[in-house]
């Protein structure tokens, strides 16, 4: 199964690489922007401390005329109205009702980056592409997560240190442990926001109730500022001119003077879902979320880099195995490999033995079959996770049970592993004892283990094999 997951994971990453890279880099820049925005004086970090009532009263005393009050996703309190500087848009302090700063347009650079992140400057085509990329990111993190837990030998191992020599592989694993969930969330929320953009969820109706005058009074004291999105003031003193008070989950129309509710509209579920996904995808209102997102965007770029380093030519070879002449060969080399090391050594061994004029066949342990002319079988195998078979050896033991070789077989096993794991070369050990039990299998020499791909040890074993086969 691992082979399948690895193949899917690799193909997904390869297919989406360019777009994934672009959206990650732009996402990283936007994360920085979100962090910067939260350090501005107009970012109010404790909106829940203020009631709508006190804020409106403060604004009434300190601002000449308010037209509209908006609480943005960035926790900015924006007032549109007439201040001492005339009609303008400005950020206000909810505590004093005073102006902090004038609203200035977002910097053109970040605007450009945002537009790029959403649609790659390709309008709707781009939005669809970005949506697909987000969906692929979900699949990538799921297949990656499966590979990760298998690689380290179970979910419990997540909390232990990673034993791995190769720096890129180690980086990929450690990043995977830390950022599996954030990346998955980025994928989900990004995909949701893309689908939402195409109005996929507009079939749900919102629920509206109307009230008679004076039937229900809206208590502005109980409304906290962090639940408010917008308050539109009545245009004139006319009786049909009302307050429009939009909260996160509903909107009230309220009469002037006594604040009695005229109507209450509760938003459908998808609009809450959109807000939540926006919150979790942009991190605009929380330094913590913004920080995680920024790091995760950076992590995706590093995933791509380390992933590319791991994916050597070997992995490409593994995708299309060449069948060589196994039916005619007298010497069969079988390899079990997870990351391609054993395969590289198997190829090297095959090259040496061909020079010695052996007719040989090279294939993976999974392709074990009845080899009609075989007299010798050499096995090179790694161990996966907690002593299990590597991905292209998983079917070997089952096949070995059912397929009986025609001639007596001399065999030798070379195990690859690392002594930093408790179960050093465990799978090779398992195979050695299994093959020894088989009737017409004879061990050419004892099991040989190689620690951390030691070059000298391999050469030693190779020369022993060459001598034995002379």
């Amino acid at each position, binding site marked *: 199964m691992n082979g399948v997951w690895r193949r899917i994971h690799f193909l997904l990453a390869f297919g989406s690489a360019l777009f994934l890279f672009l959206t990650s880099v732009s996402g990283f820049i936007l994360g920085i922007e979100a962090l910067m925005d939260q350090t501005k004086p107009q970012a109010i970090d404790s909106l829940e401390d203020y009631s709508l009532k006190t804020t409106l009263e403060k604004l009434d005393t300190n601002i000449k005329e308010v037209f509209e009050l908006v609480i943005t996703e960035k926790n900015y309190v924006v007032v*549109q109205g007439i201040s001492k500087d*005339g*009609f303008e848009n400005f950020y206000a302090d909810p505590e004093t009702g005073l102006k902090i700063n*004038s609203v200035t*347009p977002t910097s053109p650079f970040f605007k450009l980056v945002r537009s790029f992140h959403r649609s790659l400057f390709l309008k709707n085509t781009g939005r669809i592409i970005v949506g697909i990329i987000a969906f692929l990111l979900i699949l990538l993190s799921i297949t990656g997560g499966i590979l990760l837990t298998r690689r380290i030998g179970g979910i419990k191992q997540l909390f232990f240190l990673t034993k791995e020599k190769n720096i890129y592989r180690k980086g990929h694993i450690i990043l995977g442990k830390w950022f599996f969930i954030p990346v998955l969330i980025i994928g989900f929320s990004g995909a949701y926001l893309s689908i939402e953009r195409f109005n996929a969820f507009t079939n749900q109706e919102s629920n509206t109730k109307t009230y008679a005058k004076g039937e229900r009074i809206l208590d502005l004291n109980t409304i906290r500022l962090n639940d408010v999105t917008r308050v*539109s*003031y009545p245009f*004139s003193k006319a009786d049909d001119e009302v307050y429009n008070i939009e909260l996160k989950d509903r909107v009230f129309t309220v009469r002037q003077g006594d604040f009695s509710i005229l109507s209450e509209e509760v938003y459908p579920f998808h609009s809450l879902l959109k807000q939540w996904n926006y919150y979790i995808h942009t991190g605009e209102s929380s330094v913590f979320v913004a920080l995680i997102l920024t790091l995760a965007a950076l992590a995706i770029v590093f995933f791509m880099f380390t992933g590319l380093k791991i994916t050597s030519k070997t992995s490409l070879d593994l995708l299309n195995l060449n069948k060589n002449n196994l039916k005619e060969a007298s010497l069969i080399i079988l390899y079990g490999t997870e990351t391609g090391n054993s395969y590289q050594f198997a190829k090297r061994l095959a090259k040496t033995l061909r020079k010695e004029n052996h007719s040989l066949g090279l294939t993976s342990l999974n392709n074990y079959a009845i080899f009609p002319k075989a007299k010798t079988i050499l096995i090179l195998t790694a161990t996966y996770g907690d002593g299990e078979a590597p991905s292209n050896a998983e079917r070997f033991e089952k096949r070995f049970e059912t397929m009986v070789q025609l001639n007596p077989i001399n065999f030798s096993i070379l195990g690859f592993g690392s002594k930093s794991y408790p179960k050093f070369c465990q799978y090779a050990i398992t195979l050695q004892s299994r093959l020894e039990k088989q009737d017409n299998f004879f061990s050419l020499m004892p099991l040989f283990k190689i620690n951390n791909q030691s070059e000298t040890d391999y050469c030693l074993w190779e020369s022993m094999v060459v001598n034995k086969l002379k």
Partner: protein
Amino acid sequence: MQSFLKFLLLPFLLFFLPVEEEVEIKCLVEIIDYRGEGAYFVISVLDKEEKYIKTVYVLGDDKSWFSEMKSFWIHLRENNLFSDEDFYPLIDGISGPTISGGERRVFQIKVPKNLFNNGYHLRFESAVEDKAYHLNDINISLNTESLKQTHMGHGFIKKIQFIATE
């Protein structure tokens, strides 16, 4: 001594210099229900020959979209105002965010008093990305009587109301 007296009087003289009197007009704009990007607006005072006299308000904070409002854009280009940084402060509230479909927005515009009740027009041009441009979404006489009425728009504006204070 005389020059010293002049120097003393200068601030007072400046203070009593006639300032250009303006009419403050509070506007309520309601937008029709459409799906898509936010709308851009330009509000200008025109003379009888439909010539731009003064642009009093621009709604929409991205200059690059001004070109969508074709007539206004030609006016900007012909008079070389686009590169003129002094022109922009003339447009009050240039940083106002765009209004989306179904929304309403209240804002204030100021019109020089000599243009009021004097045969001039008030025009609202509107544009939405990928949708349309309306040259005369609203085009009404700029006088007391006209501003008392509610006007229906011809494009993205559903209706509009005013309160004028002279």
